[in-house]
């Protein structure tokens, strides 16, 4: 938006003067670290970045990014971000918020933002709990979850964020774990550069109210067996020594050990352009399957809502050129009183 050359940013340039108020050990810190790195490397001026959030622990995020930011109301961040992006498409707009915010009260705004393919970037900090309100179950909590509001265990099946993203027509869908800052940085970065809505789910540890919920997917001793790193065009392998893989059998998939008869050629190839495949990935749950990490789906060809709007506005202006406001106000059905 300005013409002097872009400053060289370091991650720490994006720190604000506000103390970070998350609990010690909260997974949100890692996301903040990754995000500062992303912003430093984007090639976008600080003043052209806007962070938007709803309410929740995760939603404190904008206060810690030295950019423009809006901490809005519970569940409405995607709508706020939509207004910003449609008003000024030159801005790079992020939504960072929690599972309660984006999937419970805000679920509808999320799916509608996704279907519109607005060029905004949504990062879901999924800790499977309501952190800020001190520990009620969230729409991603597992069945039977004992929390303050469900002393005898929760009853409702969790919502599957990435399945919903796939079904809503999101054009960039990815998943990562909080502790994996490197991958997280890369996935968010690619999402920002993607034209269209990017949706990145982060498995985030709430150290206080849902500690270790994701340890199976984040800890050294367990993560290799419980997660699978997706690579486009590559066979789906996992395990500490990549000794296991995913194979299709008829309408189903199964885990196989590599070696013996089974080679990489037998395995399912990850294709990030295939929506049905992305849906399949969203249905892989540990312990039966490793849970995929990385880019589930990417369709760079869908037009964005903001571009379409821009084109439409330009088009109308061209066609209506020369119309004056006075003629509009006067209309074409007037009479004169003398």
């Amino acid at each position, binding site marked *: 938006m300005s013409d002097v050359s872009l400053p060289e940013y370091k991650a720490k340039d994006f720190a604000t003067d506000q103390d970070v108020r998350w609990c010690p050990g909260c997974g949100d810190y890692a996301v903040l670290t990754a995000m500062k790195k992303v912003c430093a490397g984007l090639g976008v001026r600080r003043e052209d970045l*806007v962070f938007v959030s709803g309410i929740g622990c995760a939603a404190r995020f904008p206060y810690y990014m030295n950019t423009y930011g809006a901490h809005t109301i519970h569940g409405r961040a995607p709508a706020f*971000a939509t207004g*910003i992006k449609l008003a000024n498409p030159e801005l790079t707009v992020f939504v960072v918020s929690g599972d309660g915010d984006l999937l419970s009260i805000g679920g509808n705004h999320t799916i509608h933002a996704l279907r519109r393919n607005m060029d905004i970037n949504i990062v879901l900090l999924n800790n499977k709990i309501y952190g800020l309100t001190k520990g009620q179950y969230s729409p991603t909590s597992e069945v039977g979850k004992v929390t303050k509001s469900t002393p005898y265990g929760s009853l409702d099946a969790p919502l599957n964020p990435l399945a919903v993203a796939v079904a809503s027509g999101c054009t960039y869908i990815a998943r990562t774990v909080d502790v994996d800052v490197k991958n997280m940085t890369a996935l968010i970065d690619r999402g920002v550069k993607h034209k269209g809505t990017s949706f990145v789910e982060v498995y985030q540890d709430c150290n206080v109210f849902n500690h270790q919920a994701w340890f199976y997917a984040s800890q050294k001793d367990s993560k290799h067996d419980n997660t699978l790193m997706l690579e486009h065009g590559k066979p789906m392998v996992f395990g500490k020594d990549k000794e296991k893989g995913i194979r299709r059998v008829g309408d189903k998939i199964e885990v196989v050990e590599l070696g013996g008869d089974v080679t990489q050629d037998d395995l399912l190839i990850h294709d990030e352009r295939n929506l049905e495949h992305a849906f399949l990935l969203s249905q892989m749950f540990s312990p039966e399957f490793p849970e995929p990490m990385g880019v589930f789906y990417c369709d760079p060809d869908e037009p964005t809502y903001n571009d379409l709007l821009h084109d439409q506005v330009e088009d109308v202006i061209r066609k209506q050129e020369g119309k004056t406001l006075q003629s509009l106000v006067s209309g074409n059905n007037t009479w004169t009183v003398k």
Partner: protein
Amino acid sequence: MTSSDQTSKSTELTSVSVRFCGDSGDGMQLTGSHFTDLVAFAGNDFTTAPDFPAEIRAPRGTLFGVSGYQIQFSSNDIHTPGDAVNALVAMNPAGFKSNLQTVEEGGIIIVNEDEFDKGNLKKCGYEEGYNPLDDEVINSTYNICKVPISRLTRESLIKEDEDVSVKDVDRCRNMFALGIIAWLFSSDIEPTIEKITHYFGVVKNKKHIAELNSRAIKAGYFFGETAELFPARYQVAPADHEPGEYRRISGNEALVLGMATAVEKVGKPMFYASYPITPASDVLHGLARLKHFGIRTFQAEDEIAAVVSAIGASFAGHIGVTGTSGPGLALKTEAVGLATMMELPLVVINVQRAGPATGMPTKSEQSDLLQSMFGRSGECPVIVIAASSPGDCFFMAIEAVRLACRAMCPVIFLSEGSLGNAAEPWMIPDIASIPDIEVSHPVSDGEPFMPYQRDEHGNRPWAVPGTAGLEHRIGGLEKEDVTGNVCYDNANHALMTKQRADKIQKLQDIIPELEVHGDSDTLVLGWGSTKGSILAAVAMLEERGVNVATAHLNYINPFPKNLGDVLSKFKRVIIPEINTGQLRMLIRSEFLVDAIGINNCSGRSFYVNELADEIHQVLEGVQS
């Protein structure tokens, strides 16, 4: 009909109320609209009120499928669509049945008698064997003119040598009826014929339809002339309007044009986000066509997304506007609180309808005033203004934008279904003469930016993303004075609460003072759409030799500066409202004035004589 003079050819009247009614499919809105054009071109003053069927299309001929359009036109200034109807056109029994009681005693009723067959009579619940057209009481009460409009239309339009579609022909019945009415009120049908010819012939490229319609209207006109159905023909002299160029305008149209004008005057684009709802949808429809005037519209997934995206757009430097009706406003309240806390400009249009809950979507009411004032959590004052006539919606729309930008604060702009849909003649304003709206966005001076540092009006700076050096974060948590950081300090909260209220109060300096008209010890104080009824009722009282003063509030929060003074000068204050007394409650509480309410919470405007009578009764100490 108020007759003022007799001429040999036609009776001169000062004011006439005509109502067209029939099935939703009969084109009554169009007919009414065309007739309105005719009286407008003839220089009459007028007001119109469409009366849509309740929400939904219905099987032909049923009572709930009836569509009506009423117009009052006059040689004087008029302000309401008229109490009693002087001439009714009823295209079918359902229209006849549901509109009969609106007609004055002795009034003319032109019916399409062809439609009064067994089937249709049954559909609208008449007893078997009964035809109201044969009813003696009805015939003696009204001047019933039975015209076989269906048959006559066919006969006039179907010619042996032409191949026309019967469906197309039948669709012209309304034009035949229009022709009759035009003859009856001595209107010149040429302008309508021209318009029809242009519309169907040129725009739609359907010459034959243009031709059929023109012929139908002429046939009706000539039928009126020939058939000697009517004892007399009437004429309404041109009104004594201020010289100038006029157009017809409805409140929703005026609102749209006002917003477009505001965009030009403020020099910033507008982002209008909305979710369809009766009777506010037309504002969305209108603005959606104005992309070339700097307006972007967004149909959101619901009212909450609409208002929130509008606030987002304001944050990004646009004028964020959202529009809705009562139930939608209820949904937006949490977000309006956010805008109040963020101190960003926002205009929330509420075209009110009858509530509560879904209520009566097609009926009008003024019952969202207190919701607008208080319907938010916490101490959350916003600016509240209201339009008082269809044309006034234009000017108040500009005011809404001006005040929102000036005070960095949400404005709730109250219109009403009865204003939004009603039309009146409107002197076209000279856009160039409308003053600009000043807005400025700060740029960095190298110092740390303080997003809640207030200026002399008590307002914080509107720093826009994209501006280097002013990066800042805002939100719905209480802010620290000056820095805008999140702050839970008690004294700070008290201070910020006061500042948010004070900056609104300060607007008293830049809004017009309340004008009082008339000299009396009684003031009739109104707001919103009641202006027309109040003026007409007061004029009627004047004729009865009773004088009251009037004043009309367009600004509710803040009130005009002189309101207290004004009120203190009167012995008696009467507040007529289309609700159970919402402004009255505000006035009583603020000024401890024993204001008396005249309230009608029935989903329609006051009838002028009803209002005049009630005022009269109050004056005589007989409070009703």
